[in-house]
């Protein structure tokens, strides 16, 4: 049981997870929350400060880096969750309905952000109920209908990028 818990913990460290309702340490700043995975890896603030700041800028929260997370809007929290998921450079990013409750523009921006993570070699899996997001970026698309998983569809653009 203990070994299994440790294996799960190890697996979690290799996976960046963006929950539908991400949990943060609300009183901590966005910067501190995003840096949390790196602190858990034993890194010192002087080692990760620049990387985290870039990451926070990258998800568009540069102006809110020092704000407590409890002051962020829903879309900003989702972006902070993405930044936190990316902080430890995971092999795989799982996003569970990351655009839920967002405006279409914010949703598309989030999906674009996640898609860009493929450039650094991470696999990205996004679960969403919004069909329209699939045209934001080239990607493989599976559909689940009444519990049945469809064959994957891939766009020309996705093919082009994947086989470059």
């Amino acid at each position, binding site marked *: 049981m203990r070994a299994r818990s440790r294996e799960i*913990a190890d*697996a979690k460290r290799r996976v960046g997870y963006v929950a539908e309702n991400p949990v943060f340490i609300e009183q901590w700043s966005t910067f501190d929350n995003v840096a949390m995975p790196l602190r858990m890896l034993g890194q010192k603030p002087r080692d990760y400060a620049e990387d985290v700041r870039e990451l926070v800028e990258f998800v568009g929260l540069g102006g809110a880096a020092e704000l407590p997370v409890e002051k962020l809007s829903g879309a900003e929290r989702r972006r902070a969750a993405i930044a936190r998921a990316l902080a430890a450079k995971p092999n795989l990013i799982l996003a569970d309905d990351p655009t839920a409750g967002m405006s279409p523009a914010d949703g598309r921006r989030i999906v674009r952000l996640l898609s860009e993570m493929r450039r650094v070699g991470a696999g990205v899996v996004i679960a969403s109920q919004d069909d329209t997001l699939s045209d934001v970026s080239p990607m493989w698309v599976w559909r689940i209908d009444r519990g049945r998983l469809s064959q994957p569809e891939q766009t020309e653009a996705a093919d082009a990028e994947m086989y470059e």
Partner: protein
Amino acid sequence: MRGGLLGVERALFWTLAFAAFAAAAAGLAARAADRVAVTYEQSRNAYAIVRVLAPDGPAGMAAAETALASAPHVTSAAPMTAGRAAALLSEASGEPIDPENMPDLRLIEIELAPASPQADVSGDIVAALAGGGVTAEVIEAPDASSGGGLAPRVRNAAFWGSVAFAAMMAVIAWLAARGLAARRREMVTVMCDLGATRSQTAGRIADEAAVIGLYAGVAGGILAAIAGVIVLLLAIPGTTLNTLPAMILPIDFIPIAAAPLLTAIVAGAGARAAAGHFHGQAARLG
């Protein structure tokens, strides 16, 4: 980053400081009771009465005094006067007794130096008196009717009472530290989600609680020490800040020194247990 949680930390700090203060004060009180009991037992054992049986008359008393002057264990000897005997009897019976009515007393009060438990004090003194030509018996304080065995009972009660009280305070500290872990539940959830093991999560929260416990223990110990000094100054006539260092033994500092250490350990353990439990819950939900 921590400003928003200051209230929780402050509440925990003062709860732990109170527990540490109460436990340390109980420990100091136990030490005081122990020292009073030891002093009582020493003074009880340091007194005896010699009854001179022979020779009769003042010559017998004089020979006994001479023999006692060089007898082992005896630090001082003084014949019991009629006035002294009447005063002692009046104190014991509660009724006034006229010294004029006292019979001829052939008693000598002696004070004894501390002796090892194996030493036959009475036998040595009787032998010394016999060497001086005096037949006498040594009357020591009777066990049952003059508080014999009371001191060990008081010492035991003080020790175990303070231990029990400290255990109660430890329960308070334990529960308070669990409160901190509950307040840090979102941190536990976040750490669990990010791949921290149970021991990492519990250790993080336990460290925080232990540090707060350490400082609270120091504060509680210092407050108990100050309270102890004030009690000594008020309770013992003639005590001043200058005479205190000579009165206090190194062992008296144990409750004060133990307060920070034990508070940190108990707070850390309480927070660790609670955080581990919350981590388990988060892991099941996650």
